[in-house]
């Protein structure tokens, strides 16, 4: 009986991970396809980092490292990026979230926009440097600044919208 329950638990965990993988892969694809809009012609925002941040910090969902690795790997194949770049970004991003927010600095859990900014810029800088080393040339910086800027602008908007929806749903329930 206990063995069956254990099996059921593992199956539940596995299916949950698969669902999260599909969700992240969908988000990354959606992020890429935003470039069809003329407003994101230069570069698209990093929606996946906002999603991961909110999942870990707000909804207490901890995406496993393997899931992040696989999502990044498949996304790199889809967009033709250097294999492993997106995975590194996602893994570093997750590491910084835990290191800065949950473990040390932000124990009061406030000023999340500033912390998101720090974490995102840190992780993105590492990946950008890695890309510089690989390609041996400096790309045009305007798309990169646009990518970072739009992501940082979108974060509070998405955060406020989630707050608003949760407030409305609570109102309806009460």
């Amino acid at each position, binding site marked *: 009986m206990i063995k069956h329950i254990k099996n059921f638990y593992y199956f539940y965990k596995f299916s949950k991970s698969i669902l999260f993988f599909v969700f992240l892969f*969908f988000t990354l*694809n*959606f*992020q*890429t*396809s*935003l*470039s*069809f*809009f*003329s407003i*994101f*012609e*230069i*570069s*698209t925002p990093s929606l996946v980092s906002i999603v991961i941040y909110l999942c870990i*910090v707000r909804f*207490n969902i*901890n995406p*496993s*490292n393997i899931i992040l*690795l696989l999502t*990044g*790997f*498949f996304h790199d*194949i*889809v*967009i*033709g*990026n*250097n*294999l*492993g*770049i997106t*995975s*590194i970004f996602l*893994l*570093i991003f*997750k*590491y910084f979230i*835990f290191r800065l*927010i*949950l*473990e040390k600095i*932000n*124990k009061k*859990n*406030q000023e*999340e926009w500033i*912390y998101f900014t720090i974490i995102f810029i840190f992780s993105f800088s590492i990946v950008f440097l*890695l890309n510089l080393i*690989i*390609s041996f*040339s400096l*790309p*045009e910086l*305007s*798309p*990169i600044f646009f*990518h970072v800027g739009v992501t940082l602008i979108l974060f509070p908007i998405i955060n406020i919208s989630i707050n608003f929806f949760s407030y409305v749903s609570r109102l309806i329930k009460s």
Partner: protein
Amino acid sequence: MVSGKPSNLKSFKSSKNFNFILILLCLTLVFLGKLDLIAIRNIKAFLSDFLAPVTFALNKPVKEIAGVFEDVKSAGSLREENIRLKSEVRKLKVINSKVSSQELELLELRQLLKVLPERKNKIITARAITAPGGVFANTVLINAGEDYGIKVGQPAISSLGLVGYVVNVSLKTSRILLIIDINSLIPVYLTNSNWPAVVQGQSGKLLTLKFLSSKAKPIDGEVVQTSGHGGRLPPGINIGKIVKSFSGKFYVKPIIDFQRLTYISIITNKTSQSMSSKNFDGFAPLQKPKSSINLKGFNLSGKRVIESPEN
């Protein structure tokens, strides 16, 4: 408000080392990918084939919605667009009448000089499956691969000009490296002055001009075309126009709008050639022909010159 739960923290501490191992694994993957090993290329090709329908299905709704937005946006400027198009049609009609008369002359001259006839290009047109989005990579996946005879190195064009070239081919899909990508280098020449150069992408909107002679004086708006040097790309395909920056440096603005790529054509009869000393032509200077080698009775632009009997 943020809610850092202790359960998350515990699981993080246990997986910290695992996280570092995975980051190291990814770094190894990055450098292995850069080595361009055949095995990795094949895995990439197989997975691209596998993921192509999923990506296409996920991109399609967003593309359609973006299309609707663009239609609504363009509807506002229909009147101005109509006026602009009418004047353009008028200009084109004048040019067309000139061109048709010059074409006959050109054919006559070709026959006189016994110029080798140009080979007709065999073209395969396919649909772009993915968007060229991505901060570090500018590539597009198309739904035609080895089964249509596509090979690595073949040029990809649209009705306006060069889009890029094929960098990876699988059975059902091919990946095209866009000319705006930082890894793309195209041998070109400036059409007015005939100076050769190489354009490199910057992962942005403009292309940089490299190896352009210091004697060359590019003109703002001058058309840039492929030179065909190296034998990889056919000559005469439009790349873009010269633009001058505020600092006085010259760039090339691509003629193609990469965000609105729906169909891409691949020139399949142009096979990629290996860079051996035997078939490498080098950068021969493309100087304008001197007047002394002109045919008698024709000026530099190929027009007939009627000489007066006194001369």
